[in-house]
């Protein structure tokens, strides 16, 4: 990212949350820049999913404030935040076709039903899903389902899209292909993306900046390069080493099979 034109899109100030006496999030503060791809990385139970649910508004924080373009949205409804979310298992509407899935929410909010369908069709075409428009989600592959889920949020023109470990149900090849598509999508649309994952390779490959979390706290938030060169502590160092190891693995694979990436 160009350091000169960083505008703060989303800002968290001392956001905290406890679950049954245990801190799930301890006074977390950070900024997300306009058009940035930010990954939130950490093992399960580190607070990253809690953070995501608070960001989208499914869970109220115990304390702290969330600002979107300087506007306080701490207690706004999920639908008032202009954010979209793609869940791990996509949660598509199984009873509807691909087109209906994407058009549904849009059509609900407008009188122009035909326009909504057209818009949904355009979005699906953009995602390379024209052929699948009349199919039910159950007839699609995992990767195709993910594209529908992305189209479903994209069609509402969100300013930020959140991803909740969207690749974890997919096989390695699909993951790598989708990773590229996601990156391309972000470049083309310029939408701010916040991506929750426990896969360090994924986080480092995709992100402008990576935020590493441990025990309800942010350990380090920086570019992949900075984190690799200057890990904040031993915990982050293991992440970096794991990532290096994965890189070496993929180079080995390339040398052996001639497979790219």
């Amino acid at each position, binding site marked *: 990212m160009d350091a000169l034109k960083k505008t703060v899109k989303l800002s968290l100030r001392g956001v905290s949350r406890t679950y049954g006496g245990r801190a799930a999030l301890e006074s977390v503060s950070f900024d997300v820049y306009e058009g940035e791809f930010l990954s939130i990385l950490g093992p399960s139970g580190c607070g990253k999913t809690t953070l995501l649910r608070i960001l989208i508004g499914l869970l109220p924080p115990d304390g702290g404030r969330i600002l979107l373009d300087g506007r306080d949205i701490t207690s706004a409804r*999920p639908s008032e935040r202009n954010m979209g979310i793609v*869940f791990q*298992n996509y949660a598509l509407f199984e009873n509807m076709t691909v087109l209906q899935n994407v058009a549904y929410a849009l059509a609900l909010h407008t009188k122009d039903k035909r326009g909504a369908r057209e818009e949904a069709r355009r979005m699906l075409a953009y995602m390379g899903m024209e052929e699948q428009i009349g199919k039910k989600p159950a007839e699609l592959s995992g990767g195709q389902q993910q594209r529908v889920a992305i189209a479903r949020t994209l069609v*509402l023109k969100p300013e930020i899209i959140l991803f909740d470990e969207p690749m974890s149900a997919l096989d390695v090849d699909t993951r790598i292909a989708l990773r590229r598509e996601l990156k391309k999508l972000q470049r083309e649309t310029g939408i701010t993306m916040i991506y929750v994952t426990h896969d360090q390779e994924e986080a480092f490959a995709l992100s402008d900046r990576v935020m590493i979390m441990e025990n309800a706290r942010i350990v380090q938030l920086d570019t992949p390069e900075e984190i690799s060169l200057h890990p904040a502590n031993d915990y982050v160092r293991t992440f970096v080493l794991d990532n290096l190891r994965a890189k070496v693995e993929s180079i080995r694979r390339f040398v052996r099979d001639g497979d790219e990436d």
Partner: protein
Amino acid sequence: MKTDTPRAGRRFRADGVTKLLFFSLFAALVLLPLFRMLTNLSRESFDKVFGSPVIGEILQNSLLSALAGTVISVLIAYLLALAMQRTAIRGKAFFSVILVLPMLIPSVSHGMGLILLFGNNGILTRLLGLSSGIYGFPGIVCGSVLYAFPVAFIMLSDILRYEDGAPYEAATVLGIPRARQFFRISLPFLARPLVSVFFAAFTMILTDYGVPLMVGGRYKTLAIVMYQEVIGQLHFGEGSVYGLILLLPAVLAFLVDLFNRGAGNSAFVTRPPEPSRRPAPRILASFFVIAVSLFTLLPVVSFIILGFAENYPTDLSFSLVNSLVITALTAALGTALGFFTSYLTARSRSPLSSLLHLVAITAMAVPGLVLGLSYVLLYKASAVYGTLVILIMVNTAHFIASPYLMMYNSFCKLNGNLEAVGETLGVGRVRMLFDVFLPQSAPTLLEMFSYFFVNSMMTISAVSFLANASTKPISLMINQFEAQMQLENAAVVSLLILLVNLALKGAVALLKPSFLKKRRQKTF
């Protein structure tokens, strides 16, 4: 869930209020009537019941006949389930219909079938020139088996269908003999579910008065005594005491099942053992299945023979219309209640959800006769008493637990993030319920409707104390005809109930594939 933000708080309260509303509905349908019956218990009634010289005999009769009926039912059901699930016999689809036919007619009809065949003037008694020994213990056991084995069969078939075949394959590879495999693999797997099946069949038989009414003769059981105390002599006090006695094993069965349910569920995908293709088990299984099928068909055939042998002056259309109204409304309202309740319990978890869940399945622990008496005691003075409304209420309460659980399980299987997606897309909960959840539940809704319909059509238990001359459903006409010694009419009624239920089952079977086609299997 914590609720600091005002909006989340409001949503949370709305959720709580809805749940409380449904809870009160179930309270009115199940808890309050039951409570009323328990408060009706008096020292005096206890003394009358337990001071009676025959109480010991009644208890013994009930226990013995129910135990014998249960053991035989479960044994037949297990062998049937084995034959159907573990051998490659022909005509499985056909037999699976025949074997559950008894579930479509009232228990009293099973008793009547036995009378028609083996009674003093029975078809087979006369044909073979025998003297009848069917009245009393043998008749009750026989009729109860007819009544209870299909239920046990369905439960056991389901259990066997989800048994994993891998341990058997491993054992066979290791050269472990068949008999040992049975004791070391089959039995341990079956032990817990078998307890549930056993209790279910036992309570069914123990609390049924229909079979003893027909073939019991002078052999009195608890259920028939309770029925006669209330219907014949309006002894509500004594009735309540008998009700309490019947309630105890039913509650025990309920608790056992509740305890077993959580334990039995394994999340692993299993493949059942390959059905045996060896000739010996196949032939044996075929013979057994055919024999049991004949046993279930015989009474039906006797209804047909008797039913069409004479003319009937009796016009049944009035009570048939009553029944159809009660049945259709119970099925519609019950299905709706089950749907909304399970949505509240399965799709938004809170302490109130657990409470609502518990009260929704509580009805399972209340025998029909007990529920019926409870309704009489609570609603005697109310406006609904003596109308079709109370019959619809009591049937809904009586049968809600199973359909509720069907829907609950199906809701639990739907993606856990659907509500969250709806919220972020700006689609309200109610909207989501009708646009997303309802369409996906169509096959389950159909099954629920069918369950309510069939059971309300054939029930004689909860409705027996509540119906009067103008609201009487057709199933209770069998009791009336029995009292008037008009067995031909009773046979026609049984046949009619069977036909209506068969027609509904047929319609459901035809409709279901078109619902299922809309949600094909997941393919990755």
